[in-house]
């Protein structure tokens, strides 16, 4: 990570932008991959997700900070997920690899 910029920007399909802590967003191996490589995202710090609308991406961004804030805590209360978002967030969590699956490749 050449630029030490602390924040990155997530852009939704409908053009909403969410500025999140880079450290928090890196919990997602998907984003980690986008930022690590020679892709343009690595330089600009902007990741566009045409798969997700602003409502969904907002919740994902909220999760990044929720995760970061609580990473060393015990008894963390569940983040609130409205019922109309729960289905699409299952898919979003899968897309962002925010589940409990080990990456069996060597960590870089």
């Amino acid at each position: 990570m050449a630029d030490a910029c602390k924040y990155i920007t997530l852009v939704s399909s409908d053009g909403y932008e969410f500025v999140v802590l880079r450290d928090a967003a890196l919990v997602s191996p998907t984003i980690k991959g986008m930022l690590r490589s020679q892709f343009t995202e690595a330089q600009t710090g902007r990741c566009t997700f045409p798969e997700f609308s602003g409502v969904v991406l907002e919740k994902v961004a909220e999760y990044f900070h929720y995760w970061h804030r609580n990473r060393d805590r015990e008894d963390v209360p569940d983040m609130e997920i409205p019922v109309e978002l729960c289905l699409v967030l299952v898919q979003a969590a899968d897309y962002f690899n925010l589940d409990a699956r080990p990456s069996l490749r060597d960590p870089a």
Partner: protein
Amino acid sequence: MAEEPEEPTLPRLPLSVPFSDTRKRLRSMEAPPPSTSSDPAVFSSDDDPALDNYQAHGRRKRRYVGTWFDQQPASSDSALGDETGPNYPPPRRNRATPKPKKREFRRQLDSGVWMGTDGAMTDTDDSVDLEPPTARLSLLPPHDPAPLPLSPARPRFPDEEQAAINMIRRCVDNGIEDVDLSGLRLHCLSRGILEPLSHIAPIPNVTKDVAFEQKDAEIKVFLSTNLLRTFPLDLLNVEHLTVLSLRHNRLTRIPPGIGKLKNLQTLNVAQNSLRFFPSELLALLRKGGKLSSFQFQPNPFWTPVAVPPDNRGAEDYETRTFNPGPTPAVASRWIGLTTRLQARTPVELTDSAHTSYTRFVLPQTTNPAFAARRAPPLELEPFRQLATPRGLHHVLADAASKVAQPRGAKSLFELAVRACVRSGQADWIAAELRRDGEVGEGEGCWSAHLAEAVDRAADIQRQGGLECAVCGRETSMPLARWVEFRQVGQLDVLVGPEGVEDSRFMGLGGVSEGAVPFMMVGCSWRCVPVAADGVDGGGSG
């Protein structure tokens, strides 16, 4: 890390973002609305012969909901009464408020059932465009537990269940604590039927000149010699259940929630199809517990391989793995049932998609077809060893991975799946995910593992929830499983003159002699057995 970076505030989305946007598919597919919808048909005023509808200056067409013979104007203009609609019956309104909310629970006059109505279909709605069917989720009425089936007005239960319902009502009405539902040929007990058992209160014996004493109920439920395949989960909420017999049924599993029944004194689950017990049952088989009679044989339990390995260090393994607190002190003497650990299997490690990462794999437990097969004897692992497969150590070193880190926030996947289960519509959501998977081009069951995760979490919730055996955290996605073989027996604790406890353990005799399997569940790859002292465990510190 001295300075915590400031979290930027997220831009607020306008509240008007429609729900339809939230379900933007990852694939460009839009399924047609299900034809089985019970919503009334919607049609526009084109169908109406009253052509004077059209001459209004640029006003919208009217929408009608329901059958043509039960027409009622559905668009706002006439609903607000600003026009004199031709010959239509006045719109049905519950309230006279001029600006009601867009979505409301409205009574369907014909069915007598309260339903949340779609915004586009209320008679007070301004919008004309129908929302796409994908928005249905938020509009379904909250899932209620099945309505109490005791009403005689709905005889939709088979005779056997009706007989049970009648018996239960008799017991509740008369304060009878012995509920005999045995031999009724019950195949299942619909949710809610046993619920009234909690309300049984014994009629107190009021004698003259004796102070009235409130006594806890001692409810005894006999369900023996039926055909039950699943444990009636309503029983888990009967706090004062003291005797439970499910002898001679077809049960394959005892739910983890059984551990909540702290007042249970007698439990009979003999002659079923059980393969193992949940570890939660051990909470009732502890020093100081009330369970004093426990029948569990015969059952086709999993068995360990014939020759046990070196099994020294059992106690050390238990202490290091579970960190049990001090056992409760005994006043003078205590006799009751406990267990003694004899052996354990290796650990099976899975991920949230239930893929196995270990050579050792436990036999199928959920799929009835597989579970019916007789499993071969289970492999054992010495207490002083611990086989974390090589190559997985770096996974445990990854602090961000939920596989390795039980602390902190749950994964978004688990949170979302839990929200699905909480919504009460897990089945519908799993079906949606499967449908997405089928339509997805090429990759086949792209979403199948997502649907399965929802199914499994819903199953765990139905069984009364699941806690990690090691750290006690609640989990909807166990990632580690192993089996302990324990002998059930009677512990006799006698407190000597200096307060020193002298205890003797005697295994049950006869058919119950052997060790029975208890399923242990860990919420992460760190919540696994710890090797007993003496030998290198291989687990990374």
